[in-house]
């Protein structure tokens, strides 16, 4: 067992086993952060099609009718809601508010993210 701190151990952050809810919150936050950053730049590039006129954009929109793309979009929605709410949890606790309730705040963030995603799922698939 290499017991020394090492930069290589940063991958260990993503292992939730034997960890507490605070770590799960951090792991989810970091994964959603990386996903959303990737999505943000993809989103910006794709929106460039708007400047090429209606056909170029509607051609792209047609892709979003694919169920797989819809599921991807739902993943983004869930990630946004979770990352935002957990971010507020971090902001509040960083200023001493709700620190003793941080676990409950994490669970609340997850539940609200799931509910929010369901609302969007209903709109996307049944709307």
């Amino acid at each position, binding site marked *: 067992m290499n017991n020394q701190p090492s930069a290589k151990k940063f991958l260990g952050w993503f292992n939730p086993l034997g960890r507490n809810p*605070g*770590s799960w919150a951090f792991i989810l936050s970091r994964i959603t952060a990386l996903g959303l950053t990737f999505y943000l730049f993809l989103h910006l590039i794709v929106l460039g099609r708007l400047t090429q006129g209606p056909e170029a954009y509607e051609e792209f929109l047609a892709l979003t009718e694919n169920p797989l793309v819809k599921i991807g979009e739902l993943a983004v929605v869930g990630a946004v809601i979770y990352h935002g709410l957990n971010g507020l949890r971090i902001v509040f606790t960083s200023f001493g508010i709700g620190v003793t309730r941080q676990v409950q705040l994490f669970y609340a963030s997850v539940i609200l993210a799931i509910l929010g995603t369901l609302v969007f799922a209903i709109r996307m698939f049944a709307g």
Partner: protein
Amino acid sequence: MSEKWTITLRAYRQKEGEATRYDDFTLNVEPDEYVLDAVERVWAFHDRSLCFRHACHHSTCGACGMRVNGVEKLTCITLIRDVTQNGATLKVEPLRNFPVVSDLAVDMGAFYRKMETVGARAVLPVIEAEIEHPATSWDATNAQYTRLSDCLECGLCISACPVAATTPEYLGPAPLAAAQDRGMRRSPELLNIVDSEDGLWRCHSAFECTAVCPSFVDPGRRIMDLRKQVIGVKLSRIFGK
């Protein structure tokens, strides 16, 4: 007659120049004994070469911190009943993020030095102590009274911290909590130490330190409070107050 359990104590072994391994010892224990009792029994009756740290047996010295089934525990106050069951295995390993000296004993030198760096107080005036439910309300007339600091300097928080795993330079939960205890307004010389790349902004609010702390120091909360203190001091410097 007291309850008897048979457990397998699986101890991490590492001697200088040798490969690491786990040794299994079958022990008869009472479930209301402590994990440290089981470790001592291995040393007393099975293998005198097992190396581990301990002293006080009552959660004051902070020497017997280990990982018990993967989770940081102060073994002198961890009941065997709470961490395993009859016939099962109890795995003990050294704390993470410290160099292993031998078997379960780790080198805490760098950690103690960090505690020195922030001037951690072993004893503090009661009027400066954060006591959740004080028996009485303290005022200036009580200034002569002191109490022991809650922190045992056991290092469990350093072992559990995901950030401390990645860099030996990170100050870590206990030293940051000690800095919070000293206070940025009372000890402004600490500002540059905690407000640095290896200081309190590295914390990712995983609160693992608070989860494993055996002495209710609540380092996670204290790091958050320290952030508030540091931002307060920096803003008041900008606005010249």
